[in-house]
């Protein structure tokens, strides 16, 4: 008998609105993330970042629930468990890198997970070297360039050995070289992830499926549609249907 495997994380019937806003951003919305590599695309302000923050428990929906491996997450404690398995890469790397040196920042997660300083140091070294960032270890974080900051913040999350990555507009303000490097890194990761991006070309190179998020609903974009978009309008970020 085939065993039913629950999606890694799911949001069920979630209604959410920011304080002081009349119209909810999501109403009774459903969305699930399996173990796969997907892209999320949608116009500015459509709630992509909000959705990620709800999944991570940073925002609490008015109604509905977040399910982690099939179980409803009830409280902060549950989300703490979830955060060990799901890593979120923020839009602005300066928010993510707060330690003075790169090595300390990468080791922050492992230390919190209970590893000893020696083990944390080893894990961080390994993670940085896997990303080709070995020579960054002693660097002072605020002296890094924008692209370097992005790669290091990815390392800080990978050091926690998550099962799923959520990346919020990772190619924003990224130079071409770092962008290619990121594509390379993501393709070589044996890990599931969901990427928010306006960069069709980037999504095409890094993900299998792309979902569109608009007016509080998530719909699947066809592969062909993604391809067409890429050639038709490189920076078009409004999801829409192509009628045959």
């Amino acid at each position, binding site marked *: 008998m085939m065993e039913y495997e629950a999606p890694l994380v799911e949001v069920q019937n979630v209604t959410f609105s920011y304080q002081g806003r009349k119209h909810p951003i999501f109403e009774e919305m459903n969305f699930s993330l399996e173990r796969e590599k997907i892209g999320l695309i949608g116009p500015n302000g459509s709630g992509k970042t909000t959705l990620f923050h709800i999944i991570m428990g940073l925002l609490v929906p008015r109604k509905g629930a977040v399910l982690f491996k099939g179980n409803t997450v009830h409280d902060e404690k549950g989300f703490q468990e979830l*955060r060990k398995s799901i890593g*979120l890469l*923020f839009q602005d790397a300066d*928010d993510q890198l707060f330690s*003075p040196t790169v090595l300390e920042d990468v080791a*922050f997660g492992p*230390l919190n997970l209970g590893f000893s300083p020696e083990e944390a140091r080893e894990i961080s070294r390994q993670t940085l070297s896997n990303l080709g960032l070995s020579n960054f270890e002693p660097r002072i974080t*605020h002296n890094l360039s924008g692209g370097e900051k992005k790669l290091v913040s990815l390392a800080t999350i990978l050091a926690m050995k998550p099962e799923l990555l959520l990346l919020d507009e990772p190619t924003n303000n990224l130079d071409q070289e770092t962008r290619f490097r990121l594509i390379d890194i993501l393709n070589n990761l044996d890990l599931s992830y969901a990427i928010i991006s306006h960069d069709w070309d980037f999504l095409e190179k890094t993900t299998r499926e792309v979902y569109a998020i608009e007016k509080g609903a998530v719909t699947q974009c066809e592969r062909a549609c993604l391809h067409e978009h890429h050639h038709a309008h490189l920076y078009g970020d409004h999801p829409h249907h192509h009628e045959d």
Partner: protein
Amino acid sequence: MIPEYFSYTDSFLHRADPRLKIVAAVSITVVIAMSRSYITGLCGLVLSFFLVGFARLDIGVVARRLLAVNIFTAFLWLTLPLTYGGETMEFLGFMTISREGVAVAALITLKANCIVLAFLALMSTSPVSSLGHALGQLGLPEKLCLLLLFSYRYIAVISQEFQRLSRAARIRGFTPKTNVHTYRTYAYLFAMTLVNSWNRSHRVQQAMMLRCFNGRFYTLHPERLTAVECVVFGVIMTGVFIMAFWEFWKLQG
């Protein structure tokens, strides 16, 4: 960006335990600042020069730092000899100046240079981050150390944010003048910077929570003292103690 000119090169002092360096720098400063005699001051200056040489600092940069300090002491040289009173002596044949005023100005100059050199050699050779951790290990309250570390990390970011806002204002034709409009605009800029920083601190806290932070900081650097470090700093501290005893003995005598 905060340039740390001296923390990039390498020397024994660069590698030495920051705790020892902090203790040494603070003791030298206290003894020299309290001293009343030239001999202590001169000994201190010799010690400081020795430390600067030991740290192999770039002489040009050191000279520039000393220049900055001595612009300040130059004002003392301009005012103290004329205003200090007491015994006077002739100067350039046409005016009289205070002998004690000259003496005090000289002592202050000596002390100031000595302390600055000691700090350049001992403190600026450690990155601020390790100084922050070292202060914590020396018993400074954790909150203060974190305040230091986070300020150090985010001052550059906050200043960038302010510059971005003021650039936006300038692009729309804002030129600072002495009028209410200018004051109000600057007030807005400051206020917006505050709001932005507040929001950023909130996001940083979220980022920390996402990486399983639960209110406790674990350090990656359990520093261990080496024998050589202990000996070298033992010698330095002995010198400092001798200077302190000399001062004390002179006071008694």
